[in-house]
């Protein structure tokens, strides 16, 4: 059930100038609602010049410690403010939102989770969930350079991690789309990252007739399907990314 809740920041780890990993727990101590990998939250950011809530993916959830983790990249005023926040401060959060990734597949399916930049955020929780369902998810992570590879150790703890960096400072030099891992036969690709990357992966998946889910980051106002601002053109017409997405099977999109 969707809810608006105050959360207390337990830790806000500055990964580097541009990223932080924030761990939160409900301020009232009540158990968090159930969340699915690929869902997101909407955060109210108390900062002059910020009016609407900001959508942020669910990076990780730990029900036993009642903690939610978010991965935030500095993109503008709101995200900069979030990165600058400190433990014990409070954030008002609307959650959980959106549909989430599919986690069903035939037993033993090979699954590849492809993330670029801060797009890796939803893949950690997805990877854990897939692993707990008995799969051996693999990751293909891309970033500008080694320093922008986020949560690498956490991903490695789940499964094989393939890496690309644009400057070659770690893994293979170049974009993820050029990584040889993509030549392996996967049952499904999951992808979250910049739009050009997702479109390139979608095109590869189409060519190979591999199932593929992408997570979109359209601009949002309400996050609830009420305002119709966040629409994406699909085979069904314009649909709300905040309710019918953010995860879409590429078959339903009109990317060509």
């Amino acid at each position: 059930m969707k809810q608006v809740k105050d959360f207390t920041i337990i830790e806000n780890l500055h990964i580097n100038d541009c990223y932080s990993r924030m761990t939160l727990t409900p301020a009232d101590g009540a158990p968090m609602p159930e969340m699915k990998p690929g869902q997101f939250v909407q955060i109210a950011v108390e900062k002059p010049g910020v009016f609407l809530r900001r959508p942020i993916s669910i990076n990780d959830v730990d029900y036993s410690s009642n903690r939610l983790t978010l991965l935030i990249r500095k993109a503008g005023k709101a995200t900069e403010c979030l990165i600058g926040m400190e433990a014990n401060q409070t954030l008002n959060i609307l959650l959980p939102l959106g549909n989430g990734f599919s986690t069903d597949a035939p037993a033993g399916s090979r699954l590849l989770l492809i993330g670029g930049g801060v797009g890796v955020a939803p893949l950690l929780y997805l990877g854990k969930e897939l692993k707990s369902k008995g799969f051996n998810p693999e990751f293909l992570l891309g970033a500008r350079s080694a320093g922008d590879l986020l949560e690498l150790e956490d991903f490695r703890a789940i499964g094989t991690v393939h890496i690309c960096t644009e400057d070659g400072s770690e893994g293979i030099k170049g974009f993820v789309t050029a990584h040889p891992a993509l030549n392996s036969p996967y049952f499904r690709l999951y992808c979250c990252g910049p739009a050009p990357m997702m479109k390139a992966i979608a095109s590869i998946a189409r060519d190979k007739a591999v199932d593929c889910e992408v997570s979109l980051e359209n601009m949002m106002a309400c996050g609830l399907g009420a305002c119709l601002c966040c629409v994406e053109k699909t085979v069904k017409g314009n649909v709300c990314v905040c309710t019918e997405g953010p995860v879409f099977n590429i078959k339903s999109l009109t990317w060509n």
Partner: protein
Amino acid sequence: MANLSVNIGSLRLNNPVLTASGTFGYGEEFAPFIDINRLGGYIIKGTTLNAREGNDYPRMVETPSGMLNAVGLQNKGVDYFIEHIYPRIQVYRSHLIVNVSGANIDDYAETARRLHALDRVSAIEVNISCPNVKEGGMAFGTTTQGAASVTRAVRSAYPDKPLIVKLSPNVTSIADIAKAVEAEGADSVSLINTIMGMSIDVERRRPHLSTITGGLSGPAVRPVAVRMVWQVAKAVKIPVIGLGGIMNGRDAIEFMLAGATAIEIGTANFIDPAVTMKVIDYMEDYCSRHGISDINEIIGCI
């Protein structure tokens, strides 16, 4: 506790708090957060005769204390509404008000006619003021003749039930438009719709919205909306419904003092999906703090 109920023509609202069309979906979206039955009423998405896909993405951009939108009346048409949505949402006891738009006068009238049959639709709000569609929409709302002719056609297609006409702020004299609409038999006017605005991405040197211009809403527009409500309330005898940038109970009372009998909450629903309940609470508290036994006492009392 003070009486909060107010009348919009023959429509009795339990309290003055309505939701603004296009910002509250079909109500259902807010069921996890509020008791919809506690609202004075809820105004749902703009409905047109035929289905509309709306404008291309991007449709939204944040602005100082507000946002521009260019949704463009995306909806599945009145028949789809009647068949698929109405049966679902008529379970709410609160007054359901349907917002109606059209590309031409016949469309408006025909949409209103089809809605007239629905018992659980308490009123319609005719949007003659949408800045985000090419044909019709705002064009009708910016001249007294245009506003009058839409109202006349809808009035005859939608007799005996409360008819609210929603006015555009993009005019020199909104009071003149309100008078024209009143003369054609509207039971109430609501204002304001969004103010036409524009925003440019200076790094990419192109507009933020696919439609170049869009409609400005949110607290940025509130001073303009309060002024217009005040002007219209002095100019007409029918009840005025005030909206534009209401973020909390204080803002809602401001509109009532300016002359609004009821208020609508729009963009604020995006910031706090439970805001409507808080506004009702505030009104109760305000009345008790100020020794007001009936909220009708404060309407237009400045």
